């Protein structure tokens, strides 16, 4: 099979150009604009997928490299980039197809499709970038798109607040990333990954690589919603469900995981033995994973549960990266792919229900399986995959992560991972049962979603099975990533996974399916109510930030304001004082 011409460039330039054309096309008619966007995203996906055969055959095409002074522009040709660009464009294309019906009749559709295509193009550009500046630009473009899309329904105050929160919080992470880039550049003198990798041995001696890697991980923490910068992601559910699906499955939050995986490929020898970096990445991932999973158990919002589960699963990927070695690196990317598939599936399934009921509150759902058979079956497959039940992809990728943790001797992380697996299955069952099982709690008349919405669901549902169960699919993937999945699955790992699934499944079944026990019996007890309150308030992170940064600042500002009188005579004192400070500082430096 032949690669489409200039695919490494066009797979991200096509969506970007498409985005620029959306305002023009919308002048023709709304329908043309919608299907134009779908066509653009599918063409981009075709270009991305066409790179796989050439890569597997080991052919390196001629890559255009534009050597602008200081900031060159180029694309990468390696397994990780190609793999990620395929995940992004394929999932993105399915979501755009789904949007056609889901967003029908929305007044701001031109803006919507513009930013959706820019989002897909930006994320693909991010993973194909061959240097850090290019990566950073797309990193920010992705942030900008998330801001615009989360705030798509800007007539709702909560959506406006969520959009600003997302942009601001991720920008805190971006400060770290940019500092890391600048620090690395001041030692290496280049931004290109290839040149950085070739200088690794030299940089290991001269440059503070641990600091660089930790700063870049700081950027990933912001973008991928890890502790303590995870607060924006649950609020980001204010956007349309398709946007949530895109942010969680393909773009945005995966950027952080990609970045950490990418610096790992640039400095493999250094980072594999850098305990400070590995411990930070692994434990931040692990603790985030656990805390987010516990929050998912109590949330009553269909989309927020999925948001917490994304934070938790991304934490799981960082846990894998923190395990170190190719043993951890490969499962993290495998889990990234399976998460992309099942999370897109779950969001789009939830979208069908939300579309029909016009609510995201799970207390008003229930019994949907009767009215929406296709959606309920695809959602079930997604839930089982999320819960890590064999033979779905989530099971294979999770056990790969756990096996890697055990093999590298990270027992603490392994135990953490097992606990998270159990809780994950519990909240997965809870989510499915509250929406699809039981008696309907809403009087709305509900029908199955139209084919534009169910076709992407069916494709993704098939993918959850194929991606995990087909042995023949795994090996090319391993080859694509430059690593063979030669993990030794130990009996300990199998036993622990089985125990986790057993406990999680039993609790989920008991509380939410057979209703042997009632959740209220726990929340009514004194300890239970305290824990419940902590979990519902998300461990009080939002309260803390609001108290310290927002209210604290305003109070301090009020006091400082009193100093600024605006009287000219006082201002002249300022000039005199400034001059004296200047003279003193200069004299101190001159004498000292």
């Amino acid at each position, binding site marked *: 099979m032949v690669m489409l011409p200039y695919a490494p460039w066009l797979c991200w330039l096509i969506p970007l150009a498409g985005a620029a054309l959306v305002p023009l096309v919308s002048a023709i008619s709304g329908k043309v604009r919608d299907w134009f966007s779908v066509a653009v995203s599918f063409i981009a996906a075709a270009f991305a997928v066409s790179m796989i055969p050439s890569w597997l055959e080991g052919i390196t095409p001629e890559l255009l490299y534009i050597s602008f002074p200081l900031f060159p522009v180029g694309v990468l040709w390696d397994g990780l980039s190609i793999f990620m660009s395929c995940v992004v464009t394929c999932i993105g294309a399915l979501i755009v197809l789904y949007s056609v019906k889901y967003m029908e009749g929305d007044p701001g559709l031109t803006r919507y499709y513009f930013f959706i295509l820019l989002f897909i193009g930006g994320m693909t550009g991010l993973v194909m970038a061959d240097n850090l500046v290019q990566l950073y630009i797309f990193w920010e473009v992705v942030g900008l798109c998330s801001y615009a899309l989360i705030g798509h329904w800007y007539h709702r105050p909560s959506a406006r607040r969520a959009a600003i929160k997302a942009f*601001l919080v991720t920008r805190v992470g971006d400060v770290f990333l940019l500092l890391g880039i600048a*620090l690395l550049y001041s030692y290496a003198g280049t931004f290109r990954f290839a040149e950085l990798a070739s200088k690794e041995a030299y940089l290991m001696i001269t440059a503070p690589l641990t600091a660089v890697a930790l700063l870049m991980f700081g950027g990933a923490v912001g973008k991928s919603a890890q502790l303590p910068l995870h607060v924006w992601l649950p609020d980001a559910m204010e956007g349309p469900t398709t946007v949530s699906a895109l942010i969680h499955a393909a773009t945005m939050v995966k950027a952080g995981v990609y970045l950490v995986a990418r610096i790992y490929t640039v400095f493999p020898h250094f980072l594999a033995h850098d305990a400070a970096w590995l411990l930070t990445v692994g434990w931040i991932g692990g603790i985030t994973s656990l805390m987010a999973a516990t929050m998912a158990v109590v949330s009553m919002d269909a989309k927020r549960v999925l948001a917490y589960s994304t934070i938790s699963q991304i934490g799981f990927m960082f846990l894998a990266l923190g395990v170190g070695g190719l043993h951890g690196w490969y499962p993290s990317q495998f889990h990234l792919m399976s998460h992309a598939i099942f999370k897109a599936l779950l969001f789009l399934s939830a979208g069908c229900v939300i579309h029909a009921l016009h609510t995201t509150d799970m207390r008003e759902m229930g019994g949907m399986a009767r009215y929406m058979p296709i959606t309920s079956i695809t959602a079930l497959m997604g839930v089982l995959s999320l819960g890590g039940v064999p033979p779905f992809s989530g099971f294979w990728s999770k056990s790969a992560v756990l096996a890697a943790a055990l093999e590298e001797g990270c027992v603490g992380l392994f135990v953490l991972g097992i606990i998270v697996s159990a809780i994950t299955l519990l909240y997965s069952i809870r989510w499915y049962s509250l929406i699809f099982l039981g008696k309907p709690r809403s009087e709305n008349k509900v029908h199955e979603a139209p084919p534009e919405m169910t076709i992407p669901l069916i494709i993704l549902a098939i993918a959850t099975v194929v991606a995990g169960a087909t042995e023949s699919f795994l090996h090319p993937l391993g080859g694509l990533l430059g690593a063979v999945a030669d993990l030794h699955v130990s009996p300990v790992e199998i036993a622990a996974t089985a125990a986790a699934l057993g406990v999680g499944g039993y609790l989920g079944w008991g509380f939410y399916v057979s209703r042997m026990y009632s959740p209220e019996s726990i929340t009514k007890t004194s300890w239970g109510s305290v824990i419940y309150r902590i979990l519902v308030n998300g461990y009080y992170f939002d309260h803390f930030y609001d108290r310290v940064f927002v209210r604290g600042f305003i109070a301090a500002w009020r006091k400082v*304001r009193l100093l600024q009188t605006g009287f000219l005579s006082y201002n002249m004192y300022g000039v005199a004082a400034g001059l004296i400070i200047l003279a003193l500082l200069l004299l101190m430096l001159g004498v000292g």
Partner: protein
Amino acid sequence: MYEQALQAVFILMLFTAIAPVIGFVARKARVERVVGFFAFAGFLTAFFYFYQALRSSTGSLIYAMGPLTSFTSYFEFSQLSLYFAAIFTGISAVVALYSLEYMKHDTGQTIYYTLLLGMITGMVCLVLSADLFTFFVYWEIMCITSYCLVGFRKRFWEPVEAGFKYLVMSTVGSILFLYAFALIYGSTGTLNIRALSSHPAAFAVPFVFAPIALVIAGFGVKASMVPFHTWLPDAHPAAPSSISALLSGIVVVTGIYGIMRLLLTIFHPFHRYWGPVLMVFAIATMFVGNLTALMQDDIKRLLAYSTIAHMGYILYGVSLGTLQGATASLLHILNHAIAKALLFLFAGILIHHLGTRSLEELTGAARGKPFLAVPLFIGALSLAGVPPLNGFWSELLLVLSGFNAAGTMGIAAPLGATLLLINVAIAFAYYLRLLLILVFREGERTLEKPSRLLVLCTWILAAMCVVIGLYPWSFIQAAEIAGKALLITAP
């Protein structure tokens, strides 16, 4: 090809001189607006000539104005002076176009455009000056015209008070650096910048600290460096918005130019003394500007504080004393001038049609109006340093040059760059707040039919932001060549 630049200078001077005559005649014929077109034509022609000269020439040319005596004033045409001249005339061409509509209902248009032409001529000539005395003369021409422009709407109290405050503080600044010039002349016997830069041995520590301190403080008033900035948040909002755009975009830059020229060209050998001191002031400037801007209700006051913060970023680049730092600062001067002028012109549209500067009363003014919201977004995000807009590149260069200067300045430079980035993150909050209030919230007063000409001006500047953002390389190169002209003494 510097002859073109010389022609442009003459055009500006000539236009300034005959603008009152044209205005007088036009008023008799009841078409006073003609003088506006006249000023616009002057700026546009001058910009075109400066741009051509910048594109086509290398090296530098010294030109004597008038007969050769001991008081002859010299102009130096170099990539540096033309870089500034092109920015000044380019922005003022857009502002003159904007003023055609914005000042339509004001009386005294002849005076307005004459002052405008005079101010820009003064600014262009001061960056062209090859000696400090000529520099001072044109500096005062710029200052006097700008006081009048701040207080242009003299029937209101606020502009008059702000203009007076500006006059007093700016004059104090002028006196401070005039004293520095006197000290320089006393120790070297010359005021020629090129001659001064070639023998630094004439200065000795610690006596050189006196002119250095006076220069930083004196120009610091104009460059709104904390604690000399207090005139700016009053003067910039009080002026007509077209003038605020010029004041915030390019007039404050002359203060930076003064600091750059004196410290980087003449006192560069003493960088290890003034570098850290200037950096401390630069960082204080950023923090004061950004933290104060967060809580403003007056849209123009918010923008004025954001200008203070950006002057802090630019001064940080100067304080590094390296070519890369100077390049970053010069590029940021260009980017900030475009984006800040855009935002002030945008604020002017709102004020012109809705008659208020209070953000609370302007809530939702640009809601559901993409042709208004898009330039606002571009301007605000550009200043916030979001790629792929122009502000990102200069902020990136500033941070990179900070980390690269660790060799000469030690840990202070990367630390400063870190603080700069923290400031960029803080500033982001009020740019988003501005967008939230003007575009996203629903309010009672939406701008229904804004004047097309005013909106066009913001679109022109927004297009420049995007062009520089998407293709920054030739602009970085221009800034770098200008930086080399600035650092002629640096090793």
